[in-house]
């Protein structure tokens, strides 16, 4: 049986790991290779690196960082941030990334998904969706959550998978940083899709992961950042806890 995946997400600026509270007051945390090696030893199933750099120089440092990590840590690596054209896929995949996550770039030009999936395979293309409640609808946001595209969650997610996205990361902007659990109601909108769904936003403790996998058994993975970075939850402890709850995990 496939193991439920636990995925720490690392925000990278100028080649360094950062984690800001709601993107403000960003502070330097650690060297990406050190942190990736630490997570690997702790039992992380995959790592996500998200480039929040805007400059070309920072982009170059990010690409170098990907290859530094890929030479030391041998678990699947997903990278995202600043992926706007197929050449961006090429840039990171040749430096050791296994999957590439697209968000605003795909909203601006959805054919990016088709092209990348055709060229590198569906399993390489991860569609990352930032979503928030607007009235009683679930809207998709772009540009790091700054712009309401007006698109509905299910409609965009099914279009994305139809175009070839092999996985979806659903980031709930409503629960992000709130630490009261994953957004089960929002995630449930994607229950009929035939690709792995990764839940993101809202993890505050170990129990939130067991609730996620018990309530929505079709969810493949849980992603979080700060609770792992600040060592509030150790991935090793989390895995043992989940196993004691009869949730299949690798540990």
């Amino acid at each position: 049986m496939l193991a439920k995946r636990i995925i720490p997400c690392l925000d990278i600026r100028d080649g360094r790991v950062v984690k800001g509270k709601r993107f403000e007051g960003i502070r330097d945390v650690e060297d990406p290779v050190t942190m990736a090696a630490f997570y690997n030893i702790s039992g992380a199933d995959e790592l996500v690196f998200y480039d929040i750099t805007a400059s070309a120089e920072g982009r170059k440092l990010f690409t170098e960082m990907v290859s530094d990590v890929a030479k030391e840590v041998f678990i699947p690596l997903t990278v995202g941030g600043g992926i706007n054209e197929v050449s961006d896929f090429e840039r990171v995949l040749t430096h050791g990334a296994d999957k590439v996550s697209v968000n605003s770039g795909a909203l601006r030009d959805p054919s990016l998904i088709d092209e990348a999936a055709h060229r590198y395979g569906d399993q390489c293309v991860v569609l990352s969706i930032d979503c928030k409640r607007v009235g009683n609808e679930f809207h998709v946001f772009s540009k790091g959550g700054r712009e309401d595209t007006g698109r509905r969650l299910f409609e965009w997610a099914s279009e994305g998978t139809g175009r070839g996205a092999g996985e979806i990361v659903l980031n709930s902007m409503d629960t992000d940083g709130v630490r009261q659990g994953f957004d089960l109601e929002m995630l449930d909108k994607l229950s009929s899709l035939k690709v792995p769904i990764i839940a993101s936003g809202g993890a505050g403790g170990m129990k939130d992961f067991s609730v996620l996998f018990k309530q929505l058994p079709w969810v493949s993975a849980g992603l979080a950042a700060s609770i792992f970075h600040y060592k509030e939850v150790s991935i090793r402890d989390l895995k043992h806890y989940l196993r004691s709850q009869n949730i299949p995990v690798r540990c």
Partner: protein
Amino acid sequence: MIALIDYEVGNLFSLQASLKKIGADSILTRDPDVLRSADGIILPGVGAFGEAAEKLRSFGLYEPIREIADTGKPLLGVCLGMQMLFEKSYEYGEHEGLCLLPGYIGSLREDLPSRDAIVPHMGWNELSFTSKEAEKKWTGKEDGIYTYFVHSFYAKECEEVLIADTDYEGIRIPAFVGKDNVFGMQFHPEKSGDDGLRLLSEFIKLTK
């Protein structure tokens, strides 16, 4: 020296980096003479079987690989490279493989009992070894390991060369196969953490 066959199917960055990490020298090559002089050969691959088989032929590697395997040199196929070791594949048509192992490649989608099951089989899955001895020898452990899979087709009717398999949605998927000097891993050892590196190291030991 390990020859890593570069026949334009997929990215070899991680495989080469993983060999370096475990202290094995490797070279990317599609030169049959380099393959002949190597201590061991790794046949990687991702993508479609038909295209990959065609590339092997167009680079003039099909016969040399078969001949070299017959000399007893250790050969490891990884992912699609593992599938290529079998007799044929029914992935979009019918394609001939290297015929080094008995069995063929079929579609997971067609065989999965539930139509709701997700294809590809992607993620970490647990290996079941056919014997405790094999498990101990290859993994150094006795309580099972997980490895990372990404594939939509799988080996069938290969019981006689099975070393370990895994369960996905009610189907037993051959994960690790081998006979004499020819081995295949359906999962990605270069993406399976420290347990994956250990499996690769065991293969490398055979080349010394």
